[in-house]
């Protein structure tokens, strides 16, 4: 079976393509699958996380996946960040140290994930960021991972990948899971029925949470949204048939896909030149409890 992939950016059209790929491969078993990337003139490196998640699911159906006709520029990026290592290509050295490698984690790997992030952010090539920004970025990534661990109920793992763009002062990072998605989680845990896009919106607002047990929740995605908004960065969430994005000028928009993404993806893009303090008040609270 042969499938095609075109340009994959961190936006609606990029995710739309991935949902179509997921749909086209959802029932395959014991097949040879060729993903023809001849028309993919660019792939945002962080989008390797959701792409890798979909292809991992295909491989678990005992299908043999091959990536063909990669353009030189795309091959270079995907070989440097280790994505192509899964498909038999040797990893290329990342001389400029701008990649945060593509990795798959188990939900129990929170500590391992944390070390992965810490070690990549500690490299000397990473653009200088203010201590406050680095702290918020780090926290944000861990919040996304924790969200996937707590809510997705995945047994297929959690996929992560990132990329620095030093010239543009951008740092992009994605976390994808193959779990039940926000819409189904909301229906199952709280009995609330919303469209997939509205379910994502719900999860990013106020103190909404799908948690029902003794551990409260309802902050992870809101903290992310607040931070990215202050940073004038961008954020996208794709979950099931729903798409939600926060633009650099603070606008939010939602959309729907014809076919579902088989889990949830959270992409964040931060502006690394930002020098904001990120403290809501100048003094810490005296009375916490």
């Amino acid at each position: 079976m042969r499938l095609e992939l075109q340009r994959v950016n961190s936006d609606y059209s990029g995710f739309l393509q991935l949902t179509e790929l997921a749909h086209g491969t959802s029932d395959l078993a014991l097949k040879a699958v060729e993903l023809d990337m001849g028309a993919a003139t660019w792939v945002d490196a962080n989008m390797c996380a959701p792409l890798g998640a979909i292809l991992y699911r295909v491989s678990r159906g005992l299908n043999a996946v091959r990536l063909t006709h990669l353009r030189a520029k795309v091959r270079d990026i995907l070989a440097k960040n280790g994505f192509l290592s899964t498909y038999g290509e040797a990893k290329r050295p990342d001389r400029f140290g701008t990649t945060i490698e593509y990795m798959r984690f188990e939900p129990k790997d929170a500590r391992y994930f944390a070390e992965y992030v810490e070690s990549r952010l500690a490299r000397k090539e990473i653009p200088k960021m203010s201590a406050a920004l680095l702290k918020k970025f780090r926290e944000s990534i861990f919040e996304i991972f924790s969200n996937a661990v707590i809510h997705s109920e995945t047994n297929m793992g959690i996929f992560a990948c990132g990329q620095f763009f030093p010239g543009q002062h951008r740092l992009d990072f994605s976390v994808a899971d193959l779990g039940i998605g926000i819409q189904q989680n909301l229906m199952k845990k709280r009995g609330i029925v919303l469209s997939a896009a509205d379910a994502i919106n719900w999860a990013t607002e106020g103190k909404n949470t799908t948690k029902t047990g003794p551990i409260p929740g309802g902050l992870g995605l809101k903290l992310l949204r607040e931070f990215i908004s202050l940073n004038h960065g961008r954020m996208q969430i794709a979950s099931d048939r729903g798409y939600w994005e926060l633009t650099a000028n603070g606008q939010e928009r939602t959309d729907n896909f014809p076919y579902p993404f088989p889990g949830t993806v959270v992409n964040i893009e931060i502006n690394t030149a930002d020098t904001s303090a990120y403290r809501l008040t100048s003094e810490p609270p005296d009375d916490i409890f």
Partner: protein
Amino acid sequence: MNEQITLKMYEIVGSELCVASDDGQKVHDEIAAALKAGHAVQLSFANVETVTSAFLNAAIGQLYSSFPSEEVKERLSVTDMDPDDMLLLKRVVETAKEYFSDPQRFEMARREALGEEDEE
């Protein structure tokens, strides 16, 4: 009152990264045991670099499912915590109080925490 017990986050988690819900659960279980035994508890965040709401929800927010908020306020304190992290903790506490202000949710959480079965 019994003497105050200091729980060191770095020691319990074994790292400067207090980020995982599972690690928060370990902290919670130690705090809950000390509170039940009648002690005041001080949480030391010395040398902790990063905390997340997921960790704090499990470690501290969860306490409000089994202890009255007045008791938590009177007997729990934090030290050596980064001011930004204190703001995060404050939000976690506010969210937890609101979460458990729903009596039905509080009762369900209490039962789940105690491992009780639903009534027939």
